[in-house]
């Protein structure tokens, strides 16, 4: 799926004026239907959302609500069945380095060292070695991996591997970051540390972020806006603006307003989870 969106001179001149007014990230009524052996399964239905440039949007929802489908569509890794996605005024038509993605599973290339992993995207575009080195070194120190430049991913902990993934994505200087439960496989304390680290990196880079998570507390702690999704097929249940000041530190999680907002969202998500007691009789 090569990215053809970049080398498409404004073929739709008619829409050009409209495109200037749309938000930086604009997900416009997308649906996704998968064909399974049991027939069509709808993962997303008429889903819309948007994010302004430089803001942090988190999406929470019950398992199987189509969160990952949403991210894969925004990343351009698969097309929506209907609807369109615009990033920076351009319609998404395939994956590209303007939208960096961090996955839940560890995706460091095992045959490359930490430094080579971070340089990967730059190397694909034949950026000169010296530029590559210095970009990588800046990011490696930002994510706290100094001293591990020449280590192979196999020798790193899960949290460190995700730091490599974040640095590697940022090295491309993307317009936005797409993060699919990046801390989902980490233990509780590591997750806290990674959330703080992500915020500190984000404060510097100020990329637009689309962040999917199961963890309501995580969404609240990180994001400017949180979208709560319904169960399958995923639709927008509610969109909330998160008022807490930045920079945020972990103690915010004990703040009473934070806790109150968290329990509101928990209630919303809980409504979307089928009752485990039903159907057991």
């Amino acid at each position: 799926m090569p990215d053809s969106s970049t080398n498409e001179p404004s073929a739709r001149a008619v829409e050009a004026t409209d495109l200037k007014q749309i938000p930086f990230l604009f997900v416009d009524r997308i649906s996704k239907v998968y064909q399974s052996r049991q027939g069509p399964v709808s993962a997303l239905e008429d889903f819309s959302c948007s994010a302004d440039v430089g803001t942090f949007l988190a999406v929470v929802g019950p398992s199987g609500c189509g969160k990952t489908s949403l991210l894969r569509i925004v990343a351009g890794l698969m097309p929506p069945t209907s609807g369109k996605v615009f990033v920076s005024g351009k319609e998404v038509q395939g994956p590209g380095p303007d939208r960096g993605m961090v996955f839940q599973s560890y995706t460091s290339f095992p045959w490359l060292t930490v430094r080579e992993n971070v340089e990967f995207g730059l190397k694909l575009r034949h950026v000169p070695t010296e530029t590559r080195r210095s970009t990588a070194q800046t990011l490696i120190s930002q994510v706290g991996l100094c001293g591990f430049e020449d280590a192979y991913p196999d020798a790193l902990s899960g949290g460190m591997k995700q730091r490599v993934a974040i640095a590697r994505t940022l090295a491309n200087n993307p317009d936005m970051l797409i993060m699919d439960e990046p801390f989902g496989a980490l233990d509780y304390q590591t997750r806290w540390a990674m959330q703080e680290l992500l915020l500190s990196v984000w404060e510097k880079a100020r990329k637009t972020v689309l962040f999917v998570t199961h963890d309501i507390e995580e969404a609240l702690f990180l994001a400017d806006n949180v979208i709560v999704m319904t169960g399958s097929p995923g639709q927008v249940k509610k969109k909330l603006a998160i008022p807490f000041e930045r920079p945020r530190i972990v103690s915010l999680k004990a703040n009473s307003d934070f806790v109150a907002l968290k329990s509101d969202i928990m209630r919303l998500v809980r409504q979307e989870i089928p009752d485990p007691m039903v159907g057991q009789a």
Partner: protein
Amino acid sequence: MNTSTNSDNARWMNPVLGASSVCLFVGAWAILSYARVVQPYFLPTPTAVFKEAIVLVQREHYLGDITASLARVLVAFVLCALSAIPLGLLMGRFKPVAAFVTPFVVFMRYVPISAFIPLLILWTGIGDFQKVIFLWMGTFFFLVALIADAAASVGRELLDTAYTLGAQKRQMVRYVVLPAALPGILDSLRVMMSVGWTYLVLAEIVAAESGIGYVIMESQRFLKTPRVVVGILTVGIIGVGLDYLFRGMRTLFFPWTRPHA
């Protein structure tokens, strides 16, 4: 990671364990032969085999036979690798290629390769060319399947990651598939090398004027059992050497992987 501590502790034990299994084997052989539990034409003593080896090397150009066999195996092996790696990668990454090639590859893998010896002799004579083609046929269809598997098993997440980092489709094989699959490919090559030696002896037993298999066959005809044993030991020792060479290459070229058994 911590999971490897057990094997780290045992690492110094490995040569000791390996040597002791060899000693056990030679010991049992010595007892059975020196004590004449088994008659010498069936099982010669280690001394007889050792003397025979010296005679072979000094008077009968045995080193020439070894070189002939080695050359056949290595030439066939290189041809096999050069042809199977590209095709296997294509099969593993592009489904239409796999669909097109698979029936024939599977067919050839199931047909006993020795059944082709008469045909090959008719087509290509009994020279070195026939041996090389035979060895290539015996290994190619296995290797191509192993390499296709290695290429196909490159995780989708790695490919997706590369795409989101800006990789174009044409960059995928070079930057992701090949580096990810190379250790598996080297392991497959190691396995196919051993299969190659099996077929080599077969090829040389049927029709040859030189080579280790030829020596084994001639010696059996004249009941020179010690020579048969020399031949077997030669192949085995070369095999162990090549195997260690492959393992060494794996740790040298792929320091990021842990070796497999």
